[in-house]
C-alpha cells in the first residue's frame, strides 16, 4: 500500500518526454473536451499568457473562447481589449454571455491596449482578459506574461499568424485555422511533447442545431489542410518543465 503510494509520487516526480507537464495550477477547462485533453493542466493555463494565432479575424476564435466569456461570476469582468471588430451582442447573449460583465475596451494604440491589459490584470477583478495585439516585441510580451503570472488571471493574446515565427514567452501557443465543422488547432507550443497532427475541433452552432458545414463532404474542401509539423511526437520537446512549477517535493529532496 505504502510502496505503491511512494511509487505513484515518484512517478509524478520523474518527467517522461512523452507526457504533458503538470502545471502548479490546474488549467481552466476550455469548454471543449477534445482541446482539454491535449492541453497541460486540462485547460487554459491560469496565471499565464496564452497566444492564439489567427490567419484572419473571425474564423472561430470567439466561438472557441465563448465558454470563458460565459462563465464570469457576478462582481467580475471579462475584458475584451482592442477587439478588431464588433462583437455582436445578440449572438453573445444567445450563447449565454452575461453582457453586463463583458467589458469592451477600445484602444487608440497598441501601447494603450497593453496598458489597459496591465490594468485589467493588476486589478485582479477580471476572470479572463482577451487582448488583440497586432505586433509586440519580446519585452512587451514578457511584461504581460509576468503581469498575468502575478495576478493569477489568464491572459489570452490574439495575434496574426505572421507572429508565429517570432519567439514568445507564452506558455501555450495555438495556431488556429478555419476548417469544416469548426476550427483546426495546431499546437505550436505547450509544456509537453508536440502534437503530431492538428486538432479538428467542432464548435457548437448557435441555436443548438448542427453546423451547416457538417453535412455531406464537398469535393473542393476535403479535410483541413494539415500544416507541416514534426513527423513524430516522440522527441519534439518544446519546453521542459520549469523549476518554478516543479512539485514541491522536488525542492524538499534537493535541500
Amino acid at each position, binding site marked *: 500500500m505504502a510502496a505503491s503510494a511512494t511509487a505513484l509520487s515518484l512517478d509524478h516526480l520523474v518527467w517522461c518526454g512523452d507526457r504533458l507537464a503538470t502545471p502548479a495550477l490546474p488549467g481552466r477547462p476550455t469548454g471543449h473536451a477534445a482541446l482539454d485533453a491535449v492541453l497541460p493542466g486540462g485547460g487554459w493555463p491560469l496565471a499565464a499568457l496564452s497566444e492564439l494565432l489567427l*490567419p*484572419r*479575424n*473571425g*474564423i*472561430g*476564435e*470567439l*466561438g472557441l473562447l*465563448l465558454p470563458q466569456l460565459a462563465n464570469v461570476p*457576478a*462582481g*467580475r*469582468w471579462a475584458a475584451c481589449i482592442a477587439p478588431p*471588430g*464588433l*462583437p*455582436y*451582442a*445578440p*449572438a*453573445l*447573449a*444567445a*450563447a449565454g454571455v*452575461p*453582457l*453586463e*460583465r*463583458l*467589458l*469592451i*475596451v*477600445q*484602444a*487608440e494604440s497598441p501601447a*494603450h491596449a497593453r*496598458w*489597459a491589459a496591465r*490594468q*485589467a490584470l493588476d*486589478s*485582479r*477583478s*477580471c476572470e479572463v482578459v482577451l487582448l488583440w495585439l497586432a505586433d509586440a516585441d519580446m519585452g512587451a510580451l514578457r511584461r504581460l506574461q509576468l503581469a498575468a503570472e502575478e495576478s*493569477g488571471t489568464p491572459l489570452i493574446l490574439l495575434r496574426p499568424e505572421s507572429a508565429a515565427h517570432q519567439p514568445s514567452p507564452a506558455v501555450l501557443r495555438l495556431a488556429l*485555422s*478555419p*476548417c469544416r465543422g469548426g476550427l483546426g488547432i495546431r499546437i505550436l507550443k505547450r509544456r509537453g511533447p508536440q502534437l503530431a497532427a492538428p486538432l479538428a475541433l467542432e464548435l457548437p*452552432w*448557435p*441555436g443548438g*442545431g448542427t*453546423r*451547416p*458545414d457538417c*453535412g455531406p463532404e*464537398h469535393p473542393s*474542401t476535403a479535410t*483541413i489542410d494539415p500544416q507541416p509539423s514534426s513527423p513524430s511526437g516522440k522527441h519534439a520537446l518544446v519546453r521542459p518543465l520549469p523549476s518554478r512549477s516543479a512539485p514541491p517535493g522536488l525542492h524538499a529532496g534537493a535541500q
Partner: protein
Amino acid sequence: MARGVEPGLGRASALAIAPALCLVDRQPALEHAALIDIATWAGRFTPAISLDPPHAILLEVETCLRLFGGLVPLGQQITRGIEELGFHARLAVAQTPLAARWLARFGAGDDTGQALAARLDPLPLVALADGTPVGPDSLDLLTGTGHVTLGEVRHLPRHGLARRRAQAVTDALDRAYGRVPDPRPWFKPPERYASRLPLPTPSDQVDSLLFATRRLLAGLAGWLDARQAGIERFTLVLEFERNSQAPEAPLEIVLGTLSQDMQRCQLLAREHLNRLPLPAAVDALRLTADEPRPLAPPAGELFQGDDGQPGDAGLLLATLRARLGNQAVRCLASHPDHRPEKAWRWVEPQPPERSRGRQEPPPLPASPRPLWLLPEPRPIPAPPPWTLLAGPERIASGWWDGPEATVRRDYFVARSQDGGLAWVFRDGVAPHCWYLHGHFA
C-alpha cells in the same frame, strides 16, 4: 528675525533693516478659511470641535483618548496630519480651553503631567490678552505694579482689581484656572466639502499639481472620516493664471464606487491630470465634493493575505475610463429589433457589484447570428450557389426609422474561401448586390 526685524516694527523701518524683505499683507479671510479647513479635517479625531479665532482650534479629546491609544499617539497623529495639510501647529493639552490656548501659544513645552495651576503660573502677562477681553490698559496696570507672571496676578486681591477696572483680568483667570465654566460653540462641519489651495508659484507640471491635490485630498479624507461617509465623485477645479485668460477647468473624477480611499482618489486624479492639456500655468486648485453617503469601514481580517483577493472591479472601470475616455470603455447590450445593425447598443458599464439580478434578455431570433458583425456591410461579388449553406432568411422593413433604415435582405450562411463561415446577404432591391455582414466565429 536674525537681522532684528521684530513684530510691531513699522514697514519702512523693517525695509531699512532688511531691504530684501518680502512683505505680504495679511488676509484674514484666507486665515479663517484655513482654520475652517483644519477644523473640518479634525473631525476625524473628535466630534467636539470649536473654532477659537484667529489662530486656534479646540478639540475635546478626553472622550476619544482610548480610541487613539492615549495622549501621545493622538498628538503625533494630529501633528502628522496637519503637516500633510501643509500647516504647522503647536499642540497643548489642558483641562480648560483658555488654558490650552495660552499653553499652546506661550507654554514652555511638555509639562502635561503637572497640575494646571503649576503650568499656568509661570506664563507671561501677555497671555492674559490672548483670546480674552483684557485690554492693554489693564496689562499696563499690572506691569506697572511689577507683576511678570500669571501666578503673581492670580494672588492679587479680586476686589482690588475690580475697583481698578480690571475685572476682565479676574474673569479670564477664573476661566483659565477652571473656577468658572467656559462654554464654547461647537463647530459644525460643512455639508459640502470645498477647499481651495493656491499654489506657491504657478505651475504647469503635473507632479506639482498632484502634490497640491494630495493636500486637498488629506482634508477631504478628514471630512469623510468625520462623517463616516464615502463619496462617489469629486470635482477638482484648476484655476489658471489670471493674465492667461484661460477659463478654469473643472475635472469631474468618478471613483466608480462609494469610497473614502484617498489612494484611489489620488490615482484617478493623476490619470485625469495626465490627460488634460493645460493651456496655461495653474495658479490654484479647488476641490469640492458633496453627497457624502454613509459607508461602513471595510471589515478587517485577522490574517491578511495577498492571495485570493477578489479585486476591485469598480476601480478597474474608473481607471480605464480615466485614461482612455468614457467612449472607449463600454459594455454591449442587445436591443429588440429585427434589423441586425440595430439589434445592439453600447451601454454604460455598471460596476458589477451593483448589477444584481440580470434582466431578461430580449427575445432572440430563431436563426443563428454571427459573433462578429461588420460595422458596415461590405460589397462582395456574388458567391457561387454551392457555398451558400443555410438560408435564406428574409429580414425586411423598418420604415419607421426613415427610408435609409428600411431594409429588404435575404441572409445566407456561406462558406468563405478559406473555410470559415460568413453571414452574407443579397439586397432585395435592384441591382441585387451581395454583401458580407458578419463572421460566425
